[in-house]
């Protein structure tokens, strides 16, 4: 077994772990934006749910209670976004920015009030967080060349939320493209007037999309603080909500391509960690900042239409006025 092979496997393994919150958040954004509501607030919802999950898990001692709290927190914010941008037809972007900033401050203030530490929750013990699962026969099959290590290192040994996130992607695809709700969802994001004329409520459909997004974002946040880490720390999302948004655009609002974009961005993240301080012969040390910036750069280039075209749902960002 060469070291290189193992290094590559471990990098891919890390890719899966860092991509998980991106996949969940991007799917949340997909529902919202496909219904015509731009969701800049992914970052804030993730941060709030990470805080809620870690707080409740540390008090109750169960990761599932934490997950529940995360989903409630995230859905409440999603409803606030809906109240402002659907019911009151406020600017969707302003509302999202408000949520992000509000949560950034609130998590620190509440952390200080509840746990006497600014922006921190108590470290979670193993009983109150999601632990990695070793899939059956992972140890026994490890002797098989190539496939054995792949199974042991790459596929086995993740928390349940990682498997859930990747299992959700085909489900999202099925819901969006193969169900009546999905058809209506796509229609309301492209042409709400037509949906309204067909006798369906634009407002209800958009709220439904935001609730689904809230649940998914809640899982993403809970993953960050109770599975990937064992604590909430100040500003722990660190722009991942925006990366998810970038992946959503990069994947052109389609579930499977969005997942691939998340994996690509996650891989770049894992690579940046792996290449820290490594000198590659002939090239020299690659600055980590350059790799970190790549997802943003790629998204800008794509949006500018230099590599393909990213066309958002037609009605995204616009409030629906029935009377017009």
């Amino acid at each position, binding site marked *: 077994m060469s070291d290189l092979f193992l290094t590559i496997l471990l990098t891919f393994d890390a890719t899966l772990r860092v991509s998980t919150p991106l996949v969940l958040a991007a799917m949340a954004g997909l529902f919202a934006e496909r219904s015509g509501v731009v969701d800049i607030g992914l970052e804030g919802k993730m941060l709030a749910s990470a805080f809620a999950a870690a707080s409740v898990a540390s008090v109750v001692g169960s990761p599932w209670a934490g997950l529940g709290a995360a989903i409630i927190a995230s859905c409440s914010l999603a409803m606030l976004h809906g109240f402002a941008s659907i019911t009151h037809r406020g600017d969707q972007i*302003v509302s999202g920015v408000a949520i992000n900033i*509000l949560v950034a*401050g609130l998590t*620190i*203030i509440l952390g200080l*009030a509840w746990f006497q530490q600014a922006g921190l929750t108590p470290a979670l013990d193993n009983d109150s967080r999601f632990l990695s699962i070793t899939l059956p026969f992972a140890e026994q099959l490890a002797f098989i060349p190539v496939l054995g290590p792949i199974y042991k290192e790459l596929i086995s040994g993740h928390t349940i939320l990682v498997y859930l996130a990747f299992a959700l992607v085909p489900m999202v695809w099925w819901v969006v493209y193969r169900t009546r709700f999905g058809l209506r969802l796509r229609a309301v994001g492209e042409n709400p007037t037509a949906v309204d004329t067909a006798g369906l409520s634009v407002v209800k459909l958009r709220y439904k999309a935001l609730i689904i997004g809230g649940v998914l974002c809640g899982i993403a946040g809970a993953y960050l603080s109770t599975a990937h880490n064992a604590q909430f720390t100040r500003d722990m999302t660190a722009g991942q909500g925006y990366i998810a948004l970038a992946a959503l655009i990069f994947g052109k609002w389609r579930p499977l391509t969005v997942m691939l974009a998340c994996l690509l961005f996650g891989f770049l993240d894992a690579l940046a960690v792996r290449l820290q301080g490594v000198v590659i012969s002939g090239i020299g040390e690659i600055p980590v900042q350059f790799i970190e910036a790549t997802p943003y750069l790629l998204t*800008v280039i794509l949006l500018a239409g*230099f590599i393909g075209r990213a066309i958002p749902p037609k009605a995204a960002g616009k409030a629906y006025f029935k009377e017009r």
Partner: protein
Amino acid sequence: MKRDNRIAWINRLLLPLLNILTAFAVTAVLFWLIDVNPMEAAEVLLYGAFGYEEGIGYTIYYATNFIFTGLAVAVAFHAGLFNIGGEGQAYVGGLGAGLAILMLDPTLGAWVFIPASIIGALIFGGLWALIPAYLQAYRGSHIVITTIMFNFLAASFMVYLMVHVLRDTGQMTPQSELFPTNSWMPFVHDVAAGLGYSIEASPLNLSILLALVCAVLVWFFLWQTRWGFAIRATGKNGSAALYAGINPKHIIIVVMCLSGALAGLVSINELVGYQHRLIMDFHLGYGFGGIAVALMGRNHPLGIILAALLFGTLYQGGAELAFEMSNISRDIVVVMQGLVILFCGALDYMYRPWLIRYLAPVPKQEELSGVAV
């Protein structure tokens, strides 16, 4: 009062006032939830911000940053553009100011250094906004998404430069070498001492004058020039402006460069005025704070100065609050910014239907028939 007048009053005065009050009320509830007496907190906060000379100095010093970013966001808003990139533009503006100072001969006088650093900040901040502006105007990508991406690009770019290129080798933390003394923006307390007055030392420097001049210039530009008219026309009704012969592409480019340049000036107050070297993350929070300031100030320079003063008060008073009370931190200001953006921005018209119904109801049919129509 005629109904139209009443509606104008509701829109211009009552609604903004109610929105701000709601934001304050929610903050008060939050204080009460975390076991802090809101009145007591307000008292400590006001004492911290205005109770002593140094505190007042800090308050105005922070307000200076908010005037710059508030104006930056407002200028873009007037053209119907939402510039979320103030954060990145302020950061890169700092690079412009820093480079201008570090590359000039250190023996030169302040009359060279200070204008050079201001021009550096304007150009670099403006250029960082030019790229998203170009992409929006000519390539059709959305300005909000690109400016968000450019915030992150700015952060990576600056970290790279600070760590690998501009780092002062004698220092543990990545920061540039100290600016020559001649290049420092004079402190207000030094100027006052020169004039024979003695006030306590604080970071407050003459950048506040620059900020006030910028506010006047922005007012003049937007309301007294042809370009300003074209910008406001585009923001109010893009297609009408287009038919009037205004090129929306040019508007986007001009407005965004101006917006980025204004945001870049944060570095004059922070770096040239106080830190006297290029440091990491000096800009954090001011770009986003500018959104709250612009929304609260109704995008008018005078309103922005008042809103900036309020946020400066909260910033400085919040520090005092964190010092006095163990169960609260300065981040309460961030919460307030979020609430202001929510209630003055996204939920701007929440109370409007209700106010119209009770204060300016549509006259009933029989009343209408009595009045000569």
